[in-house]
Structures are given as structure tokens and as C-alpha cells.
């Protein structure tokens, strides 16, 4: 083997490590700026109409809702899947209350006992305009929910515009949701 070839071969590992290193650096930068989320879950329903459903309400919180009622809305609605047993959902509540001053949020209690979900929602004041109970998680499957909390932005007419799989807060609202409302 001649020496140039040897030199090139022994330089290969550092080139490979360098490429990987630059990639990792980009990822870390993206994680800090929010552009790269390794835990992001792509929901295949984004851009599609909402699935059909009809769900009962929670005790003391009205009648629940159906896909027809959601489609009939004239304003965009944020649909939020939550559960009383879910810690991020508890942390999300103050954020949801502040978002609810700007737009209606419809809540769906996922795999939760109705009385627990009702008490949870009413504990510090409900952020939800309407609440329904998905007792056995069937509706969540149609929506492609992988866990709670997850949220969907639904345009008037019932098309899903955006999906988020993290606990919502005002920053996410400003960065992800509000720009999309402007386009409607």
C-alpha cells in the first residue's frame, strides 16, 4: 500500500467522526431553538378532516360533543386530550387557561373515570369551552393520539391544521398556533 493511500485511509475515521459531530451540533442547536425535537411524533392526520365521533360529557360539565358540532364551529378550535392521571396535564393547566383567553379549547378526557376528570378540570377553573369523555380511548385512536397531553388545532369546517405532543404553554401558542390562526 503506498503512503498516500495509507494517509487517506487513516484520515477516514476523523472525517467520519467530524461529520457526525457537526450533525450532533446542529441537532443540539435545533433543540435549543426549538427547531429540532427528537421526541416529536408526526401525526398522520394533520391536513386531514377530523374523524367521526360522539362522546358523552363529564358530570357537571355539560353534554359532551360530536364531530358534527366541531365541524360546525366558525372559529378555529384547539382540541386537547388530557387525563387526571397525567402529570404533564396538571402542569399544562395554567398554560391552557391563559391560551383559553385567546381561543376556545375543547377538552377530551382520555381513559379517565368521569368523576375524576370532572374534579380535575374544575379544581382551579376550567380552561375548556366544552369537555367530553373518551372513557376507553377509542376516539383517541382515530385521532392518532399516542399519549396525553396532545393537542390539535382544528380549522372551521373540521380540518386538522396542527398537532402538538407536548404540554402547551403560552410560548408554544405564540410560536406554533398563533401564526397559523393568522392564515385563516
Amino acid at each position, binding site marked *: 500500500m503506498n*503512503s498516500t493511500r*495509507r*494517509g487517506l485511509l*487513516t*484520515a477516514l*475515521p*476523523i472525517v467520519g*467522526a*467530524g461529520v*457526525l*459531530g457537526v*450533525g*450532533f*451540533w*446542529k*441537532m*443540539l442547536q*435545533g*433543540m*435549543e431553538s426549538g427547531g*429540532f425535537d*427528537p*421526541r*416529536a*411524533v*408526526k401525526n398522520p392526520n394533520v391536513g386531514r378532516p377530523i374523524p367521526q365521533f360522539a362522546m358523552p360529557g363529564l358530570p357537571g360539565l355539560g353534554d359532551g360533543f360530536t364531530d358534527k358540532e366541531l365541524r360546525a364551529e366558525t372559529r378555529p378550535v384547539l382540541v386537547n386530550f388530557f387525563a387526571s*392521571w397525567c*402529570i404533564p396535564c396538571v402542569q399544562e393547566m395554567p398554560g391552557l387557561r391563559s391560551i383559553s383567553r385567546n381561543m376556545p379549547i375543547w377538552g377530551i378526557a382520555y381513559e379517565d373515570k368521569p368523576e375524576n376528570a370532572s374534579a380535575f378540570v374544575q379544581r382551579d377553573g376550567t380552561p375548556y369551552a366544552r369537555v367530553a369523555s373518551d372513557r376507553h380511548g377509542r376516539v383517541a385512536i382515530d385521532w392518532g393520539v399516542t399519549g396525553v397531553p396532545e393537542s390539535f388545532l382544528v380549522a372551521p369546517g373540521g380540518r386538522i391544521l396542527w398537532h402538538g405532543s407536548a404540554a402547551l404553554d403560552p410560548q408554544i401558542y405564540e410560536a406554533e398556533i398563533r401564526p397559523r390562526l393568522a392564515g385563516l
Partner: protein
Amino acid sequence: MFGPEQGHFALALACVLALIQFVVPLWGAHKRNARLVALAPFLAVSQLLALAISFFSLIMCAVHDDFSVQNVAANSAASKPLLYKITGVWGNHEGSVLLWTLILGVCGAAVAAFGRNLPDILRGRVLAVLGGVSAGFQLFCLLTSNPFDRVFPAPMDGQGMNPLLQDPGLAFHPPILYTGYVGFAVPFAFAVAALLEGRVDAAWGRWVRPWAVAAWCFLTCGIALGSWWSYYVLGWGGYWFWDPVENASLIPWLTGTALVHSAIVVEKREGLKIWTVLLAIATFSFSLSGTFLVRSGILNSVHAFANDPARGVFILGLLALVIGGSLALFAWRAPSLTSGGLFSPVSREGSLVLNNILLCSICAVVVTGTMYPPFMQLLAGRTISVGKPFFDAATIPLTIPLLLAMGVGTALPWKRAQLARTFSHLFVAAIIAAVGLVLCFWKFSGALPIACGALAIWVMAASVTDILRRVGLGHSSMSEMLARSRNLPRSSWGAALAHIGAGITVLGLCGMSGAQHAIVEIHVGETRSLAGDDWTLLNVHDYAGPNYRAMQADIAIRHNGRLITTLHPEKRDFTTQNQTTTEVAIHTNFITDLYGVVGDRHGTGADATYVLRLHRNPLAPWMWLGGLVMAIGGAFSLSDRRLRVGAPKRAATRNMAQA
């Protein structure tokens, strides 16, 4: 005496000592100043002492419930059992980084203590490299993950620990695994020192191998323990999920295994030198990057540490220095290393080259599968996941020739083998493997498990017959055979044992491919059958534990009416942490595991039904048992006297004469 401030100070002191350990011996070696080089062992030992004080201080903070220390407040609680107060110290990010540096300190001190027969200059350089790595990680610990940070006002009680982590298996898993990861720092330091020196010879191969083998033993045990933990604690009935964190431990294991084998070729034939140096650098680099990728949150894993990109940037810089620096040195100096003689493809060294090619191919597959999702997301913006189907499909075809070669390799002599003679040596093993193939047809289903099972038997048979042939079975008297077996190098026994262990693990994996399970929802008193056994739910009762409430089920398992065992799986509800854990019940006879999990209760009173998960896992214990046998084999070869005494002395005097 051992408070948080003392611990913090000791850590800072260790960091300063590590920096001196990095700079002074390198400078001394450069200037050929023997006195400066001779400082290195003292510095390594004093650095370890400072680190030990620091680590002990953190343990004392946890034991004495000093909740003014942020780390203790966040991860401990006054009501926690003492054992978990101690082991909980390394169950979180900050504490585990401190443990990591402590183990690195132990490695440095071990080189100082056991490396007395090394040439002084080489030992000085090795310790300097270890000191540099230590200093970097201690800085990381001090600047971004300080375990001694205080909170004011101090809370009355801590936030407690994840109940999943309150398990003896997990308590001792991290130290063993980290010793494996960090242990490969020593071969790495040897490689960098050799590149600095510009010389790799047979003696270098002999010095580096025991360190690589020791680290490999710990890593093997660590991986086996982790897999066992996920089997009996997580309650999914699985043992390996190709999760990024698991892959992060498998990747250095694969290159480390290749290193352990290629260093033999350096020692015996002065071949594969550049390659071995690269493997030593690569193994430690993979250990480091695995830790980094998990801590920074780039890899999406179930084993979540608190993610902090800022921390990630620091550690990425550190990795760039350590890995980039060593690889740059490699690119610069490796071409000047002279390589040894030519090999014949059919020889011991030829089979070791094949072993390296196959192990590194498997490693490349695992690296690709692990790195594909984040890079795909970065470059194409698509989220995808790479899972079990890819890894199984890509690694098993590479494992088959590896197993085949494992059997042949040990039967081949160095330099050049005569095929006919080798075949006659392997004849008995081949017959045993053929019988094994029939057995596998009978017991396993599916082409791959049958093929792998037969090959595992082949590996074990070839290892046993090779040892028997060497002690002269068949043409010697009993006393001659005993004498020969005593004279046989320990490393040969170790290799045979390790190969047998690998065979046992592969058989376990093949057995598990035939695992059966059922998820049933039944009333108390009902019976369901699974693979010929009848599982009856006898009773379910609730009871209160120290900090949880539990629902315990009694499940009787009968085979043809004869009671085999009664399992008592539990579901525990930790009210303060709002978390539920499942306590799996396992009955094993070392051939088959019967594995029961109790899930949700639906309905109330006599009408209530219970969700049960029932598993029948053939040969499951063999997977971890094999890992243990492999590690014992490695430990056995460490006790080989050639590794402890002999040639190195002469080299040492020659080196000092040059200085």
C-alpha cells in the same frame, strides 16, 4: 468532615490534580525528564483519593438527608430505605457523572499500581492521557452538573425517587456498566501513548490486552444485568428492545470484543497494529458518545435523563477534543507504524481478522440503525423510527458466519493451517453440532432459530473438544492429562469458557424466539391454558406496603393436573409519586420461565375481572447466564501468568536507557 462543601472542594482539587497529571508527564516524556514522568503515578493515586472523598461526601449528604443539597432534595426523601439513599446517589445525572469520574480515577490508579512492569515513559504517557480525560469530565461535572449545588431555603423533605429505580438490580447496574465503559479509557490511553511514541510492538499488545479484557468483562456483565432488569422489572416480558440506550452499550461491546481479539494478533504476530490502535480509540469513543447522546436527549429513549441541550454543547466540545484529538493524532502518526508480516487466510490470525470484520459489520449496522432516525429528521425533516425488524434482519445474517468462524478459529494454528488436519480436529464437534441440529428442529421453530441454535451448539462443542484435544484426551494417561491441563495457559481456558458463554447466550436467544404469551381478562376462579399449562386465577387481594398500596394475585399453574407453582404478581400504586409499578412473578427451572403479570381490575365485587399477562419463555435464563459465563471466561484469562510477569521488564530497562 464529609459535608457538601468538603465534597465540592475535593472535586475541584481532583480536577486540578488531573490537569497536572495531564500536562507534567507529557512534558517530562517530551523532554526525556525521568523525574517529571515518575510523578504521574503519585498524581493518579492522589487524584483518586480526592475523588473518593468527594464521592463519599455526596453519599454522606444523602445518608444524612441534607436537603440543602439540591441533588439530594430532588432525588431522595427522608423515608427512603438506607440502601436506596446510597445507591440513589448514582441514580441521577449529576451523581452518575461523579461516579463516572471516580471510576476513571480508579482506572488511573490501577494503571499506576499494576503497571509497574511498563516502561516508565509509556506509563507516564498513559496516565497523562487518562488525566486529561479525567480533567475534562471533572470540569463538566463542576461547571454544568455540580452534584453539590445548594438550594435555599432547604426543603423539609426531598421529592423522592422513581419507584422503578428502587430495585437492587438497578442499584448495582450503573457502577458495573460504567466500569465497562470507563475501563476502555485505559486501552484508549495506551493507543494514544503508542501513537505519541510512534511504536507498537508485541509487548504493547500484551500490555493493552488485560485492560481491554477487564473492561470487556464489566461491560458484558453490565449489559446482561441491564437486560435482566428490563425483563423482570418492566414486566413486558422482553429482554432487549433495540432502544438507543441499549444500543449505546452494545456498540462499544462489539468493538471491544473485536479489540480483545485483534490485540492477540498484535501480541503473537505483530500484525493488525494500526487496526488495533484504531479499535482501542473507537471503543472508548463509542462509550463516550453513547453516554453523551443519552444525556443530551438527542436519542429518543425510554431511559430518560433530564435533558439539557446546554449541557450537551459542553460535552460535545469535550468529545470533539478527546475523540477528534485522538483521531487526528491517529491520522497523523498511524501511517508511520510499520506493519507485521503477511498472513495466510487459513490460520488463527486469518480467523481473527474474519472475526473483526464480522463484529465491526454488526457494529456498523447497529450504529446506522441508531443514528438513522435523528439524522433523517435533521436532513429530511421526517420523523421515523428504526426498530426490531431492521436490527434482527440485518444482524442475524452476520451472526451466523461469526458463530461458524468461532468454532473453526480456535482449532486453527498460528501462521498456516493444514486444512485436512483442522477438519479432523473439528470432526467430533461437527457430529455434535449435527445432533444439535436435529434437537433444534425438534425444539425450535423457524429457520433462523434452528440454524443459530445448531451453530451455538457447534461453538460450544468446538470449544470443549479443542480443550480436550490439547490436554491429550484419547492418547494419554489420566495423570498426563491432568498435568497438561495444568500447563495449558489460563487464557486458553478463558477463551474456551467465553466462547461457551456466547453459545449459551445464543441458545437462550433462540429459545426466547419461541416464547408464547397470552393476555387474558378473567374472573377469580377461572382457568386459561397457555402452551399446555393451565393458569388459574385463585385469588386477588389488596394490602398496604410501606409507601404503596398493592394488589396481589395468586395464580396457580398446573401441567396435566399437577401443580407446578403458584405465582404472586403484584401491581403497586405509589401514591406520593402518583406512579404504578408491576411486580412480575417468575418461576424458573432454568429451562423455562413462567412469567405472570397482573394488570387492571375491571368492575367490582364478585363480578370483577382482572387482566393478566401470561408468558412462557423457554431458555430465558440462559441469555444472562451466558453473559456471566463470558465474563468469567474473561476474568479467567486475566489470571494468565504471561500477562503478569515476563518480557515487559526487559523492555522497560531498554526504554530507560534511551531516556
